[in-house]
């Protein structure tokens, strides 16, 4: 049998939104042999969710994607990823909340479902590459592949992609990296794509109500109510579950009568205690990051052994602050340089170059020395 030529064959992940629609259009126009694929990761009909508010995986999203694929003239399929998604994303999402930390399901989904699972499928479909509508720039240079924030700062999604490996990058296409959202919508409109004006998807795709309700309903006996306490242990109130709180959170505590707003400082998942205090008490000199992956070709493998100046981003909507980082025993030690921000355990910390453009790598924020978070603050204090 002859060896197949797969160079131009690409699986395009299509959600039914405008970004992935335009990604498919651009690749198709550039001469790639595209196969549109939607990933059914969550069946709203089985989970009592309100499909009107669903941000993807609603039957209407697949209908949109199918219609766009048909207009572009590419084949289109829906793949059932529900089991994988449940195991790799939802279970971990709930576990992380149950453990008093704040999960980042989009990172898990990109790492373990979109790029890993979808790539496996791509291979069996005879496709070489996977393309998505992420606003991320990818450059091939002699030393390897480099990932940069997308041109549109407001839409940049590189934060979610720090888990990609070099060999994966060599088989990945991000056609929207050089475009702004406005330009993407214009391209869609000019091409008569029906999703051109479709609203942005928001928040977490599988949660149609509030995250509190979604998690609360599913934790069952793992739900951990407890007390609000000040740093000295004094009880100042009660709450119905630690899953409702994230370190650094101010809103929704329901604690009044203090001369300045109170913030969540620490969460003790064993006792169910949520420690609160003033903003100044949140300040930490730095934090640790585990489960690391380094994207930049010069850092692939171990990351920087010596202290290196970077920008570190600790939330999706965060723009990053200058920091120094070095890696020892598989743990990245991060120290802030002149600004600080409050890192929430469980969330991703993603490193960029000092200009804050190129993605270097990232991992998960843990409490200092990996010990339970509740001990850390008091030792530091």
């Amino acid at each position: 049998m002859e060896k197949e030529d797969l160079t131009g064959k690409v699986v395009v992940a299509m959600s039914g939104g405008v970004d992935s629609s335009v990604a498919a259009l651009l690749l198709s126009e550039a001469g790639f042999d595209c196969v549109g694929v939607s990933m059914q990761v969550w069946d709203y009909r089985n989970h009592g969710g309100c499909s009107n508010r669903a941000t993807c995986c609603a039957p209407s999203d697949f209908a949109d994607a199918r219609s766009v694929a048909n207009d572009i003239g590419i084949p289109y399929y829906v793949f059932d990823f529900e089991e994988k998604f449940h195991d790799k994303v939802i279970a971990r999402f709930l576990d992380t909340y149950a453990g008093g930390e704040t999960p980042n399901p989009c990172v898990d989904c990109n790492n373990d479902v979109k790029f890993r699972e979808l790539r496996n499928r791509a291979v069996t479909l005879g496709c070489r590459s996977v393309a998505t509508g992420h606003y991320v720039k990818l450059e091939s240079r002699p030393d390897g592949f480099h990932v940069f924030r997308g041109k549109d700062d407001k839409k940049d999604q590189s934060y979610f992609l720090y888990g990609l490996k070099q060999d994966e990058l060599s088989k990945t296409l991000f056609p929207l990296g050089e475009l702004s959202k406005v330009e993407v919508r214009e391209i869609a409109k000019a091409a008569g794509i029906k999703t051109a004006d479709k609203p942005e998807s928001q928040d977490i795709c599988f949660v149609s109500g509030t995250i509190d309700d979604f998690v609360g309903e599913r934790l069952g006996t793992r739900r951990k109510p407890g007390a609000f306490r000040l740093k000295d242990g004094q009880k100042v109130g009660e709450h119905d579950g630690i899953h409702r709180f994230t370190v650094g959170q101010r809103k929704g505590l329901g604690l009044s009568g203090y001369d300045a707003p109170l913030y969540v400082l620490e969460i003790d998942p064993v006792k169910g205690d949520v420690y609160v205090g003033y903003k100044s008490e949140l300040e930490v000199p730095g934090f640790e990051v585990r489960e690391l992956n380094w994207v930049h070709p010069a850092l692939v493998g171990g990351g920087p052994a010596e202290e290196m100046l970077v920008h570190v981003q600790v939330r999706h909507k965060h723009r990053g602050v200058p920091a120094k980082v070095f890696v020892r025993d598989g743990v990245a030690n991060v120290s802030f340089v002149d600004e600080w921000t409050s890192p929430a355990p469980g969330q991703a910390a993603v490193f960029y170059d000092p200009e804050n453009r190129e993605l270097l790598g990232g991992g998960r924020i843990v409490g200092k020395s990996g010990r339970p978070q509740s001990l850390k603050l008091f030792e530091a204090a």
Partner: protein
Amino acid sequence: MKRYYLDANATYEILPAVKESLVALLDGPRSFSYLNGSSIHAEGQKVRALIDAARADLYRYVRLREADFQIVFTSGATEGNNTALLVPFEMSSAKDSLKPEYAGHVISTSVEHSSVEEGLQRLERAGVEVTRVRPGSDDIISPDAVLRELRPETKLVSMIWANNETGVIHPIPEIFRAIQRASPNCILHTDAVQALSKLELDLSSFPFDFLTIAPHKFGALPGIGISIVNKRLPLKPLAVGGAQELKWRPGTENVVGIVSIQAALAELSKLITRYREVITPLRAEFEERVLAHYPTIEVIGKDAPRLPNTVMMRLPGILTEDLVVALDLAGVSCSRGSACSSGKQLGSHVIGGMNYPKEAGREVLRLSFPANFQESDLETVLERLFQCFERFGLRTKASHSDTIPASVH
């Protein structure tokens, strides 16, 4: 890239003769502009004549007498199967409740099409007891196994004649004759969708009360079906609202569909002959080649009587959801089982209903050759199939003997 259509059990190509008949119906000097066959006026009478002629052709084809059986045009075999299950219990498809006087027992099989299986589930929710007979080790439903389940209160027996996924043919005439001898009032229904479109059948040789047909399986349009109903039963239809089809199926008849049936019916004997004479040996060659190359593949129901065109393969360890897509991209159209379950990938309940482990339902691939498949295309189909199999890591005979040298044995 030339495409090869191997999904005849899902739907057949609309026959050229059907297209011509439809063009003549809607365009040209003798075309129709009004299609309500119940109207008294001249336009209506012309349409009535069309419907009557098509129905008369059907009676001739199935060799049944109008005095004994009513041929009813429906929206399709799903409606026909639903009706056959629910009407004996005076249930509508819209509700789950059952009047106590209609309670009873139903015998069916574990290998029904979902339009029967889900009807059975609805009956169960309403309190009807359902026994699903499983195929024996020979993959077929035996008359004895059915008789063993028969009770005085068994009201209905509903069994698929030839399975849509595996092609396995069950001995329906024998089973129904045995049931009728033992329990003359028991209502007998068979889903004959696949059997009638691929086999020469003698419907007058055995007793039945409902028989369901889907003419798009032999080249007519989809969206129209045929139910043959025994007039011995004083049964009421599901829908009300008109006297069409002797009140069996109220509603203005789908004349476009009926005309397409008449045209396709005229070709059906030719199709069936070709299945028997050309496709049967072609399938044998196909299976031999596949099994010789890939020893781990298993053909479901290989030794049972089967439709001449159907090959249901089990590829152990391979989730065939993607394989169907890969084959589509390679220009080979096939499916994993019933087309109706292709949206959500749960795997085949039919395989689960046979003597295979549950996971086997997700490891199957169904090829169903159309009667007009060209023998000269077999090589290309095999080549594309093997190329995809290779990509999925299926072990070939060659790789097999690489790891276990022949001299060891």
